[in-house]
């Protein structure tokens, strides 16, 4: 009973925050409400037996997305009220959304209460995967191709962002926040290492650890520390790319190892080595994720030869 009360409260708050974020008159309010929404979402996921996701959501949904949105807000300059949307303009979309929602609900109600065959299959094959935490096994063994492509998506977003990164917003840093961020840094590194290591047997893993590290690095970067952490630094580039590189090279090595067999299978880890391969991939992926996420949040224009600035000044007067 009390659990149901808690659930109702949680769901009500989530809906209220989302609605308020969409409808609020000021953009800054919308962003703040969205960050609160992300934090509550993390709680909902912890409630729904998804601690891995709660960790990731707290670091990403509330932390990094919040920082991103605030940076975007800071670029908007003076805070103006949103233009008013007239009643007629609101009415039709609302009607459309309500109709869609009821269709979606009708479909959702037909979903069977019993899960499909995959969870049992995962449990059955878990012993051969090299790790004992099922989510990590799915991510880095059963469906590792998805994870590889996901790392690529992350890298690609970074490439795109570096290309269009705007000119920096000038800001100064206070001594207090600087020293506090320096105090936090070792703590965050310790915690990230723990989360990475724990991933093999309990909730945690490369992505959560990377996101944590990135959060720490973003705070330091915003305080004008870590000046070496920029795309033009070859080592930074190397480690940003190494996550994918190590993944692919490990896969190639495993593939060649089976080459003696008749039909080699892509991305199959040899069972006795699986544990070490996964740990190796995760370590490099953590670093790559941390670097990529940090640069995504704090990317600024003069950083990189990829940026389009030179081209803009040359060919901007085409029309």
């Amino acid at each position: 009973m009390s659990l149901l009360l808690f659930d109702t409260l949680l769901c009500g708050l989530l809906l209220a925050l989302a609605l308020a974020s969409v409808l609020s008159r000021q953009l800054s309010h919308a962003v703040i409400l969205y960050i609160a929404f992300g934090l509550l979402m993390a709680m909902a996921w912890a409630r729904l037996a998804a601690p891995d996701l709660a960790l990731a959501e707290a670091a990403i949904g509330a932390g990094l997305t919040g920082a991103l949105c605030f940076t975007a807000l800071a670029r908007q300059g003076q805070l103006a009220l949103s233009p008013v949307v007239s009643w007629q303009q609101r009415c039709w979309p609302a009607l459309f959304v309500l109709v869609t929602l009821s269709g979606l609900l009708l479909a959702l109600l037909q979903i069977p209460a019993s899960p499909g065959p995959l969870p049992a299959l995962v449990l059955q094959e878990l012993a051969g995967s090299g790790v004992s935490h099922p989510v990590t096994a799915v991510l880095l063994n059963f469906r590792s191709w998805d994870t590889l492509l996901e790392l690529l998506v992350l890298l690609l977003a970074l490439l795109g962002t570096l290309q269009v990164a705007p000119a920096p917003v000038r800001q100064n840093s206070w001594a207090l926040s600087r020293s506090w961020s320096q105090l936090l840094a070792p703590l965050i590194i310790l915690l990230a290492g723990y989360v990475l290591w724990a991933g093999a047997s309990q909730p945690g893993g490369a992505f959560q650890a990377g996101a944590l590290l990135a959060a720490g690095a973003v705070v330091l970067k915003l305080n004008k520390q870590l000046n070496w952490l920029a795309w033009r630094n070859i080592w930074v580039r190397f480690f940003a790319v190494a996550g994918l590189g190590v993944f692919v090279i490990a896969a190639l090595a495993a593939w060649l190892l089976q080459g003696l067999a008749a039909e080699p299978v892509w991305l199959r880890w040899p069972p006795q080595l699986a544990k070490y391969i996964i740990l190796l991939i995760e370590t490099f992926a953590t670093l790559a994720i941390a670097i990529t996420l940090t640069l995504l949040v704090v990317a600024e224009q003069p950083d990189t030869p990829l940026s389009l600035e030179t081209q803009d000044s040359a060919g901007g007067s085409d029309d």
Partner: protein
Amino acid sequence: MTELSGSLLLFLLTAASLVAIGVYGFIIGPEPLRRILALNIISAGIFMLMVVLAYRTSGSGATELAADPVLQALVLTGLVVAVSATAFALALLARLEQSSSEMSAPLQLKQTEPEQ
């Protein structure tokens, strides 16, 4: 029709409503930044739906897993994709606003640049 229990039904309803709220926000806007937020709300709703569906496993007693790990892994992948896309969209937006302000006051920007 369904045999889903009370709490699950509640979360299912919330997830669908979040998607609906996000779609509404995406259509209405009016600022681009709010559209990006709305997209994030849609994806939060979809991920919540996935997490709720994953949670079905715990009640059924078919396995000793707390939740469907496949779906949870998919959500993790989806989260990364969502945050990457959001970051890229925000960078584009910032560039868009910068170039529109440059067009209105190109001289002023030229003066401030050497300071940095």
